[in-house]
């Protein structure tokens, strides 16, 4: 677990009363604040509302109620300005099979209106970091899941976003690819960026995150550093897994 960001850090994401119903409430008046320069992990059981929350934050879903502010920008009133400084990476890497990684990154840079020279330099840097150099000019159609995820991650980083939101980015990756992705994300946080990530792999949250939020039934039932969460459950020196299961059980009882 890394040291928490200074308390006076600017707010990267502020969510208030966020609500979304499908057949039942998926997200139920959720309040969430993430400070700049933090690695924030959102954990919770299946169907807790993690992905729905993040999809609303990045503009993929329209909330029924509530507010979303990214770096102080009202994401519902001015979505384009909010999107300009945000990146989204879903659990299923969505890239174009018929484009090469290099072409894909140029396309992303165009969408985000990034200067070509700066974007190209950044793209070459990312391709190097992610070990994609030998495949930079091959079409993505034959890529493995890990390679596709790396291309998608490079796309998320090429416009140098202040806030990166990732939904289960390590699913299906081999150990080497997972390590690369984790290093790149930690590097972003070290450079002052903010990372919000959902994960089912509690060890990842435990090792990488500055703060952890636990969601159950569409509500944030606990939040803090691992030590704070342990204190909340009264179970000192236990693993995040034990702490998480206790918190979720308590949350379900309260609901």
């Amino acid at each position, binding site marked *: 677990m890394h040291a928490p960001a200074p308390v006076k850090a600017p707010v990267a994401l502020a969510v208030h009363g966020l609500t979304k119903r499908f057949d039942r409430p998926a997200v139920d008046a959720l309040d969430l604040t993430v400070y700049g320069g933090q690695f924030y992990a959102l954990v919770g059981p299946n169907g807790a509302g993690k992905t729905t929350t993040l999809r609303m934050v990045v503009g993929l879903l329209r909330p029924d109620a509530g507010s979303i502010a990214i770096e102080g920008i009202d994401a519902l009133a001015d979505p*384009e300005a909010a999107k300009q400084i945000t990146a989204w990476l879903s659990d299923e890497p969505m890239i*174009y099979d018929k*484009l090469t990684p290099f072409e894909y990154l140029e396309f*992303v840079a165009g969408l985000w209106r990034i200067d070509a*020279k700066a974007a190209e330099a950044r793209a070459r840097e990312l391709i190097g970091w992610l070990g994609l150099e030998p495949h930079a000019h091959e079409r993505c159609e034959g890529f493995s899941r890990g390679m596709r995820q790396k291309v998608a991650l490079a796309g998320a980083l090429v416009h140098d976003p202040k806030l990166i939101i990732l939904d289960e980015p390590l699913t299906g990756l081999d150990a080497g690819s997972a390590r690369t992705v984790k290093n790149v994300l930690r590097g972003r946080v070290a450079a002052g960026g903010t990372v919000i990530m959902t994960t089912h792999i509690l060890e990842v949250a435990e090792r990488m995150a500055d703060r952890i939020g636990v969601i159950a039934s569409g509500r944030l039932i606990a939040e803090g550093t691992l030590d704070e969460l342990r204190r909340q459950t009264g179970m000192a020196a236990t693993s995040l897994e034990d702490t998480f299961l206790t918190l979720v059980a308590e949350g379900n009882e309260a609901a």
Partner: protein
Amino acid sequence: MSQPATLTWLAGHELKLGWRDWVSLMTAGRRRRARRVGIALIVFGAFMHLFAYWLVARYADATVSADTATLVGLTGTLVLSWSLLLSQAMESVTRAFYARSDLDLILTSPVSARKIFSVRMGRIAAGAVLVAVLLAAPFIDVLAMRGGARWLSAYGVVAGMGAVATAAALALTIGLFRLVGAKRTRLIAQIVAAVIGAAFVIGLQIAAIFSSGSLSRFAALQSPWMLAHAPNTHSAFWWPAHAVLGDWHALVAVVAASFAVLGLAIALFSGRFGEHALAAASVGSAVVRHCRWSLHFRNRSPARALRQKEWTLLIRDPWLVSQTLMQILYLLPPAVLLWVTFRDATGSYVILIPVVVMAAGQLAGGLAWLSISGEDAPDLIVSAPIAPSRVLRAKIEAVIGLIALVFGPIVAVLACEAPFAAVVCALGIFTAAAAATLIQIFFRTQAKRSQFRRRQVSSRIATFAEAFSSIAWAATSALAAAQTWYAVVPALIGIGILAGVRAISPRASS
């Protein structure tokens, strides 16, 4: 019940899969639609019988001892139908090669791969035969009702044609595999299939234009030159035509020979089929040449980046390339007619304009689906800092831009000789393309580009509306080129189709 792993057991398995696939295709995966689909098929069958009656009833009196003209006409029709069957069979064989599906299971099972692939080839042949028989059924039924049961022998000939088409498709595709390898075969096979499907029709039309100045493909078959050079009526060359007319000896020979050819093809190729399919399934990463776009980034607005992306993806789509090529091939006869017309200065370009407009509408419909509904990275586009309306506009511009690229040269040639006709043609192309694009916008869904082949299943209304809209604008353009106010009537129908589609589209009701 047959023993596991025997040929009949495997055939039963393939039949079950084939049936479920067909039901899913027809009902779009919703079993509750089955009854409605059944009724629609009966209505469609009845309509096709009426159409067949109008088209072929007058030929029902043709006898077994037919003259050369009848035999030439009948054989020409059979060859034309066979070329289309071959095109379809090639597509089926190519699809079977490149779909990995259960390949791992098959090749790791203790059952002989030759046995399994023999059955699989048999399934492809059964599919081709079934399609051939179903398409020919209305015509054969009408002829049998009007001219007697002897016409039913045509069913045997049609089934034989399906078998030979599959055998030829297997030989061609496997030949391509050996010649150019797994990587290139997919693209080349699709293009070859498209060209074969179109070539015979187009060849006859061009011959007809030169011989009689009309687009009718039968004019060439009945030309004096053709009749003079045709073999004697007792030649074995006419056996398929004699078999259709009810000659039982010819029928037995044609059917036996056809299925013997299919059996031979299966025996020859089933051993290597698995090996080729495995090679095809592992094909993926084609190395791209270092084109300028891939060497350096260029400053682009989001709209331009979107247009460029659409064009790149469309150009790199082998299925679309083959379909576009086929559309362009179909434009060849009108282009030749244009040349012949202006060379002779007879001014009959009114025939040309609706063909071009119709083709533009149909091509635009496919491009619009790929561009608007077939988005492989929807999250990326929605999470980008660009308004949805601008995204949509850029995609529409990409479609219209490609249509202009394909049809611009024809309009330009026309403009040199007949400026008014060129203006009408350009307006017709633009309107038909815009209408087809609008229909795709009304019915837009979220789908992978690879689902393009099944796009008709998701909305049959959109598919039919697209076709009728193109016909309406083609008719409008033809009448406008003829400078008659009757052009208003199909134009109003075209507008009505759009309004109707808009009213019932899912977007209007949501």
